[in-house]
């Protein structure tokens, strides 16, 4: 038999005006299990709290109910007071007779009756409640950043500058990402590489950063504060420790005509290469697919010319396990390839545009490379088919973006601005050329953005045609662009020398697979989902994993950098304490009765539920049951409602508590 104390607060007159608090206290005293009840003017005041503490001691109370305002207001206050009196704070509850009663009802009789009922319900809740101890989780103060684009670089630098160790993993041979490919950046037209490469060098030189390029995430285990991440280091065929980065191997490599991915396939590179001259690390890799040595076993020139003997054809993929406490995911984006319908994707292709079959239809990133001083044309705008300078260039916006009929409904956010930038760069370089832009509307919400766009239209003479393009085809050496101008209300055809498509921003290939390894959720396009669209835009639902950059949704550079720094700040907050303390309202499994159907695991949004093997003393597998990682559990209780046998139970909201409350109705 429990000994519960009920304290009914007048809240000045806020409650007592409509609720007969004395009666409520009296009725409470008659509820089975209540050992003491009283009413008091201000329970939250110091004397009120003292009253509570004294009563706990005097009447040997084992649970406390304060009938007062909303628990959202003072639950913490009273739980602290109860704790000070020697009770477990979770055995202190509040009955909300102010917001839910005295303030919303006028009839004194009805309000008093309701207040009594509320108290009765809550007494049952306290009676069936359990002592709970806060959950503590140790924190490994080392972070993993996945992706070495501007987002990953920024996050890694911020965390490292705060004094924590960081592991930065990049899939490609060099960090830098897409930003390193850009020519100039809007809205200031400063050179992308000029602002990017110093940051790349900072990463390489930072004592707190361990950089793994040409590496991928193989497996992720553990939970917030305690992840074990297996990193796969792909065989570079060049020993990073020995290589001095002299570059002789690259100049001597006999196979030089391999389309360079960094230049969107428009420049050439040898089989042993660094993607671009400012690459970090400046250590080449051998592209085994295209290397004569690997394909036929004959060549070996690079090994012969390498002074330090760094070239190693026998190198294998290696794996390391990194212990980290937090993970920042910054895997970035790719541009939508529109010539075909991607396998298994909800997105349709744009076969009618002839992309992929007509060489002079290129995407925005290719145009960036053409306009870049370090690009394949040395910064001259020359079209791919015949190297001529295009005099009429058509830019088409929203290719794939905002195209519901093609399966993508979102806006790619950066295209309006970079297309405007492209028209300017083009106009600066080809003075007698004409740029046309097909667009739906120009979206320019950013500092200095609209001014920039207006400059493209008003000063740089780009012709903006509001409308979409239906079809393009080659006619002679021209590309016929058939479209509409909805402002004039006519169909338009332009014979263009070059067409630039502002194709949609999409998550990187394999984003879904990485999400599955990390146990984070992603939307139908494979963009990673934040925990809350407004208030937790950086956190993943899975505790300890944070998002930065375009992997979460299309973003421009300033937004990406902001989010990366925000993610870094979140990591630092986590690392500020040695132990992570969590509310003990988490689910627990009754292993005796769990039959391992794992319905709970299927509905858990946090990935908190694991499969656990139960073995007998001989080590034979008896059964598999669910196990809740208390460090990860969010405490929603969806698992319990789903479990048919109720073998999983949410502390603080047990079936026994709820049933008793319903019984008391």
């Amino acid at each position, binding site marked *: 038999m429990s000994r519960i104390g009920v304290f009914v607060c007048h809240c000045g007159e806020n409650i007592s005006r409509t609720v007969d608090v004395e009666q409520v206290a009296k009725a409470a005293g008659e509820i089975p299990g209540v050992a003491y009840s009283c009413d008091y003017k201000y329970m939250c005041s110091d004397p009120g709290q003292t009253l509570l503490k004294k009563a706990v001691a005097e009447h040997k109370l084992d649970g406390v109910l304060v009938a007062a305002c909303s628990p959202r207001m003072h639950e913490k206050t009273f739980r602290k007071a109860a704790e000070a009196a020697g009770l477990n704070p979770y055995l202190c509850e509040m009955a909300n007779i102010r917001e839910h009663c005295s303030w919303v009802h006028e009839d004194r009789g009805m309000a008093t009756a309701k207040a009594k009922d509320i108290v009765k319900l809550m007494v049952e809740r306290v009676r069936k409640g359990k002592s709970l101890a806060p959950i503590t989780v140790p924190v490994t103060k080392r972070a993993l950043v996945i992706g070495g684009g501007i987002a990953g670089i920024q996050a890694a630098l911020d965390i490292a500058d705060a004094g924590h160790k960081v592991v930065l993993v990049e899939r490609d041979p060099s960090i830098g990402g897409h930003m390193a490919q850009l020519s100039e950046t809007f809205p200031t037209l400063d050179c992308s590489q000029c602002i990017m490469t110093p940051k790349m060098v900072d990463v390489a030189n930072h004592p707190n950063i361990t950089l793994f390029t040409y590496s991928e995430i193989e497996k992720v285990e553990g939970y917030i504060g305690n992840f074990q991440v297996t990193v796969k280091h792909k065989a570079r065929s060049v020993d990073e420790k020995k290589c001095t980065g002299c570059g002789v191997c690259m100049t001597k490599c006999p196979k030089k005509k391999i389309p360079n991915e960094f230049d969107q396939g428009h420049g050439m590179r040898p089989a042993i290469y660094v993607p671009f001259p400012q690459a970090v690390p400046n250590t080449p890799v051998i592209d085994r697919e295209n290397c004569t040595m690997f394909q036929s076993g004959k060549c070996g020139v690079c090994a012969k010319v390498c002074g330090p003997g760094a070239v190693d054809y026998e190198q294998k993929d290696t794996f390391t396990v990194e212990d980290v406490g937090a993970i920042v995911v910054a895997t970035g984006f790719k541009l939508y390839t529109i010539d075909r319908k991607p396998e298994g994707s909800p997105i349709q292709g744009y076969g009618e545009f002839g992309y992929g079959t007509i060489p002079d239809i290129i995407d925005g990133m290719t145009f960036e490379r053409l306009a870049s001083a370090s690009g394949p044309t040395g910064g001259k705008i020359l079209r791919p088919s015949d190297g001529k300078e295009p005099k009429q260039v058509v830019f088409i916006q929203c290719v794939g973006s905002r195209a519901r009929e093609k399966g993508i409904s979102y806006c790619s956010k950066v295209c309006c601005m970079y297309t405007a930038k492209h028209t300017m760069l083009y106009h600066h370089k080809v003075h007698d050329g004409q740029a046309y832009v097909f667009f739906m509307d120009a979206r320019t919400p950013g500092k200095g953005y609209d001014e920039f766009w207006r400059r493209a239209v008003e000063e740089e003479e780009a012709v903006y045609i509001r409308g979409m393009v239906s079809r393009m085809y080659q006619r002679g050496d021209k590309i016929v662009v058939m479209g509409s101008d909805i402002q004039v209300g006519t169909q338009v055809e332009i014979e263009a020398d070059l067409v630039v498509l502002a194709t949609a921003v999409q998550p990187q290939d394999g984003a879904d697979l990485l999400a599955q390894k990390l146990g984070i959720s992603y939307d139908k396009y494979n963009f990673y989902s934040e925990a809350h669209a407004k208030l937790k835009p950086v956190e993943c639902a899975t505790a300890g994993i944070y998002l930065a950059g375009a992997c979460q949704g299309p973003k421009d550079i300033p937004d990406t950098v902001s989010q990366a720094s925000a993610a870094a700040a979140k990591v630092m907050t986590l690392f500020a304490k040695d132990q992570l303390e969590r509310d003990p309202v988490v689910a627990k499994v009754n292993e005796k009765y769990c039959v391992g159907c794992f319905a709970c695991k299927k509905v858990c949004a946090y990935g908190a539920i694991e499969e656990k093997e139960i073995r007998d003393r001989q080590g034979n597998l008896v059964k598999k049951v669910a196990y809740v990682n208390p460090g990860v559990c969010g405490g929603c209780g969806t698992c319990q409602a789903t479990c048919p046998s109720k073998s999983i139970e949410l502390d603080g909201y047990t079936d026994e508590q709820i049933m*008793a409350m319903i019984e008391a109705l």
Partner: protein
Amino acid sequence: MNAKASKTHVTCIEPAYYEAITEAIRKEAVQILKDETVVGVVGYLPGRRKGTASPALVTTAEEAGKLIFSPACVNNLSVYLTKAKKGVLKKGKVGIVAKGCDMRALAGLITESQLQREELFIIGVVCPGVYGFGAERTGTLTEANIARKCRECSVHLPDGADVAAGTHTELADLTPEEAEEMARIEAMPQAERWAFWKEHFSRCIRCMACRQVCPFCYCEQCLCDKNRPQAVESSPRPAGNMAWHLVRAMHLAGRCGGCAECERVCPMDIPLNLLNRRMAKELKELYDFEAGLNPVEKGPLNQYKEDDDQSFIK
């Protein structure tokens, strides 16, 4: 009764067809036991009384040679593979004779991590139908004595079995009594529906036969056996009975493959499968989900779409 008798009885299937299935099952079962592919085979043996058969767990080739298949082989044998009824067969791969409707349960159990496909050797039966409960159990299976679920069978081909016994594939076109009954109940005024079910549930004696034959009632602790807290009264009174059957229907929603065993075994003739079919229909309409067609990752109530119907929510 009489109205039924005056109907022409379409002969659904010749007895010789069942004999052919029997032969095929025996051959396969003997073989897999002989070559030790499996540790045992769950099949059917004839009962003492004419027109009856019992489930059997055979472990020797000799016993396997006596297995049968007939219209009396009504049981869904997958129940013998679930945890709650475990321990009767040794660990290892098990052979099982399964009709199309039973295979839906197997698929569901695989979905729910209760079975592994590689631990099963499924002898699928191209089932032309079985006897209805309480129907005439002798002679040919006809429209008069075929089970209600078989009248609207859509899964008589055991897709996904290791081997299939039987070749006959054409089913007679019978009136879908179950669907018609469901439509009849749905068309009733609300109070009449309540009266209909109240009468049925009040008769329930809580013998738990429905639960015990159900392949999906494999919980080690049934919610309805729990007493702290007691979510459902365990005493056989109308109130607890109603709660029990509603809870069960809810727990089976999205999982039940429609073998109708619960309804068949009910000694009080409560049309339990109607509840399960109603839920299946709802989930099909709302989420385009049909249980047990294949092992899947998640059932309809273990997943969601952001644009799920919410017209009922204010």
